Structure formats: C-alpha cells, structure tokens
C-alpha cells in the first residue's frame, strides 16, 4: 500500500487542531467550501493518483462502516 497510514506528525494533536480551528466560525456551507479547497490542495501536493485513490477508498470505508452500524443499530432496535 502506497498510502501511509502510520502516524506522520510529531504532534498529531497540532494537525487535528489546525483543521478543526480552520473551520471555527464557519457555517456548514462555508465549511464544505473550505474542505473542498483543502482536499484539492492536499491531493495536488501528494501528486500520486494511486495514493489519492487509496485515500478515497479508506475514507469511503468509514461511510460504509457508519451505514452498516446504523443498520445494525436499527436491527437491534427492531429486535428490542
């Protein structure tokens, strides 16, 4: 796998906070605009289509997992 998923920041909290704080004071629409620009800037910096594709697969798996979790929760609720 070309995509690095090991921890690359010396201070991961700084990286997380930097992104969180970038969104501070923005409404949802503005936040979505910011994310769109940020994704494109970072994708270009990586400059490797395979890494980008792997990142997309990894990111999309979250949504699948979330969906499955919801489904499971619904099923559990129905059983209860």
């Amino acid at each position, binding site marked *: 796998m070309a995509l690095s998923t090991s921890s690359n920041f010396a201070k991961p909290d700084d990286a997380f906070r930097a992104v969180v704080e970038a969104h501070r004071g923005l409404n949802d629409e503005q936040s*979505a*605009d910011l994310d*769109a*620009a940020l*994704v*494109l*800037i970072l994708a*270009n910096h990586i400059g490797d289509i395979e890494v980008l594709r792997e990142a997309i697969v990894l990111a999309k798996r979250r949504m699948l997992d979330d969906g499955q979790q919801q489904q499971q929760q619904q099923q559990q609720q129905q059983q209860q």
Partner: protein
Amino acid sequence: MAQSKTQFGYRHHPDQDRAGGNAAEHPVVVVGAGPVGLSLAIDLAQRGQPIVLLDDADRIGEGSRAICFSKRSLEYWDRLGIGQRMVDKGVVWSTGRIFHGASQLYQFDLLPEPGHKRPAFINLQQFHAEAYLVDRVRELSAIDLRWRNKVTGLEQRNDHVLLTIETPDGPYLLRAHHVIACDGARSSLRQMVGAEFAGQVFEDQFLIADVRMTAEFPTERWFWFDPPFHAGRSALLHKQPDDIWRIDLQLHPDADPVVEKRPENVRPRLARMLGHEKFEFEWISLYKFQCRRMEKFIHGRVIFAGDAAHQVSPFGARGANSGLEDAENLAWKLDRVLRGISPEALLASYHLERSAAADENIRESTRSTDFMAPGSRQEARLRKAVLSLARETEFGKRMVNGGRLSVPSIYCSPLSTMDTEAWRGGPRPGASMPDAEVSTRSGISGYLTEAFIKAGKRFTLLEFANGAAIEAPDDVGVIRIGEDGLFDSAGLAAARYDAEPGTAYLLRPDGYVAARFRRPTRPALDAALARATGNI
C-alpha cells in the same frame, strides 16, 4: 440565415438500369458524403481503389457545424492533397483563454514549439471543408459520387452486401464487398444492422449562434465560466473565416428550445456578451448531446466510421477530428485487404484502435461537460474550489476544464512491436509521427510530414543515418536523415524522435509508429512489418 452553400445535381447512373438479379458489383461503397466519407473515399481512391460514394442529399449541409480542425486532421488532408486549401481559408489559432466572471484565469498555447508545418488548429466551417473535399473528389476518376442516392435496405450475404438504394428515378440494387457507413449521428445503416446504441445523454442545452460582424477580438478560443453576460452558465467564442464568429451558450436544462432559438431572444444576450449590436445572425441552433459509441465498429461487411460509430460532446473538437482519424486508420487497412496482401483480420485492428480512441474521446469530453455543468451540489462546490484556486495556483489552472482539445490517441495495438531498447523520448509504437522542420541538401526547407508524403504514404522507414543503411523491404518507403539524406539543421527531428545515429522508425501508412529500433536489422524490420500488416 445562410442557405446551402453548394448544390449538386442528381445524375442517373447505368447501374440503376440493371435487372434486380443482375445488380452491379463494387468493391467498396461509402455511404455519406460528409467530411469523413469524402476523406475516406479520397484516401482509398489515391491508393488505387474504385469507390462508389452515396449521399442522400444533393447539397452540402447548412450551418457551420464542426469548425475546429486539428493539426492531425490537417496533416491527413495534406496527404489527401487539400491541406493547404483548408489552411489558406481557415483561421489559424493555438491560444485559448479561460475566464471566470469578468476576469481571465489563464491562457494556454496548444503548440508552443516551432518547426511544425501545421498549426494546432484551424477554424473552418464544415461546409467549406466539404466543398473543398468534393472538389478533390472530382479530380479523382476512381470515385463515383452519387447524390440523392439513399440507402433504404441492407442485406448481408456470404460474400457481399446487397444494398437497396432509393433515387428520384426509383430504387435500384447494388452489391458491395465492403460498405463503409459514414452516415452521421443518426446513421440509418446502424439501424439496418440492428446496432442501436445507448449512452449518456446530457440534459443541459447549448445554443450555437454564428454571427457575422467585424470585431477586434484576437483569433483565440475564449471560454467563460459564469460570465457577467450569462450568469451561472458557460460561454464560448471562436472566430471563423468570412467575419463569422461562433458563440456557444450553455442554457438551463429546462429552457424552452423554441423560445430560446428566436433571434429576438438570442440578440440581447449576445449584445451583452459582445458589447454592441452590430452583428447579423448566420445560423442559430440549439442542441443537447450524447456521449456514446457502438459496441462493435465492424458488423460483417459493414464498417462504421465517424459520428455513425461514436458521438461526443462538442467541447474539445473531438467529433469531426476523430472521424477523420477513423478514415486514415481504415483506408490503408481496407486497401491491403482488397489487394489480398493482408488478411481480412487486419480490419479487426481498426475496431480495436479506433474504439479505444472513441472511449478516450468520450471520457475526455464527458469530463469537460461535467465540469461545465456540475451534477450535484458537492460537484459544484469542488468546481468552485478549483476556479478560485486557479486564480493563485498553477495546479488550479490545470484542473479548470473548459474543454480538452483533440489530440491523436496512442494505440495499444496488436500491430505495434513493443520496444526492447531504452528510449528517453520520441513517439512510442502506436503514437502518431511528430512533425519537424528539415531541409534538403540544397537548403530547401521542408517538413518530415512532407517527406512522408513524398515517400509514398505507405509503410516508411525513417532512418537516422549511421554509415551503411539497411536495405528496406519491398514497398517500404525511406526517409533518411543525415549524410546523403535530409538535413536536420536545428536538431528538431533528432530531438523529437530521441534519435541517435542508426535509430530507425517504421511508420505505418497512416503515419503512426509501428516499431522503432536503436540498431535495426533486416529480420527485426521484416518481423515488425509482418506484425503491422496482420501477416503473422
């Protein structure tokens, strides 16, 4: 509004007087006298094949329709003997500008290097191109062009195709060994072989207006996203010959075509765009388009080319140009099959190479269209990000997609001999030959593409001299660079072909690279030639 530019007479042909069971027989019948059918007929006739060319109309279509003809198409038309006439009439351009709102985002040059015979593009109304092609057809006695001959029936037999043709004098029958269907997007032959095709329909409507005016705009392609004169949509401005300007406006999917097409509704919109009202309408048309291709370009003895086989969005000039690439790809192969020097199977490579090219053209033009008309809120958001990043970053500019203009495909083909030596550049097997300025020993300037024509528009060995040359096989032309051959004074040919003394390229009759060698040997050359002609 412009009416048809050229009218042709229907003429009764003796073939029409033959009894049904005794239908005349022809090796090749080409159906459709548009740019693709005409070019293909000329190419085959120049190779010595007699051609019957049928068209259901008796005049060249009205409206300018296709206007951008690529360098590759011009090089093909040079081989057909009409390139110069097209260029003399056409508007030469290579620069495009992209605007967002009122300001320019960036500009690009499609041919930034010198030493090419032909420019990146010319703009020329399709009816001019067709008229010049018809003139060329008339010089070739091998082409029998029959106007108002409409194919209404097609029956595939074991060793021929039986065509029913409707004329003003009633129907008649023709037998053809091969039928080439160049009868356009609404191809009736496609229906006759039962090969309707599905594809993606784009819901956005586009309005084309050709207006006549004298204007100071430069001869460049101008494309706007969200211009002040057409908020929220895109627009395109292009210059054509005769003081005609092509304007392309994206409309809302729900716009009423009848209302939108009325000159009184188009006029104020263009007046805002141009900043004045001193223009007259030549042609107004409204269109939606589809991106699709036939699954198979060859159905028995019927072979499809151009819009009949594949359709793309117009952004990128990939319609007519890809049709002409079909023609140059098919002509030499069909000629060899008809001569019996290549097996029928060689034609299968036409489908392989050109259907892959169609896929590439569809992919590119679909991406452009999607960028112009984002399909979801998030897609629109990403586009907005790209357009705003383009103002201050180079990568943003490169991501802005206002149409990726037609360049020839690189074929991944069974006809190509794979490289076994080290190359740092140059066209790889399956790529089209780059041009370069060269000169004769006596100092007369010329081009590689011209040398290719002089060498016979056939399989040609392009060799960079290194003492004794290898003997070329029969029927293979030779272009020699260096020593007693052409003089590569600026080193352009050597640079563009990554050539060292001894380097040799085997070029196909359509000017694509079949094989290349650092140290060519006769057996290696023979093997490459056998592969490229389907004789292995």
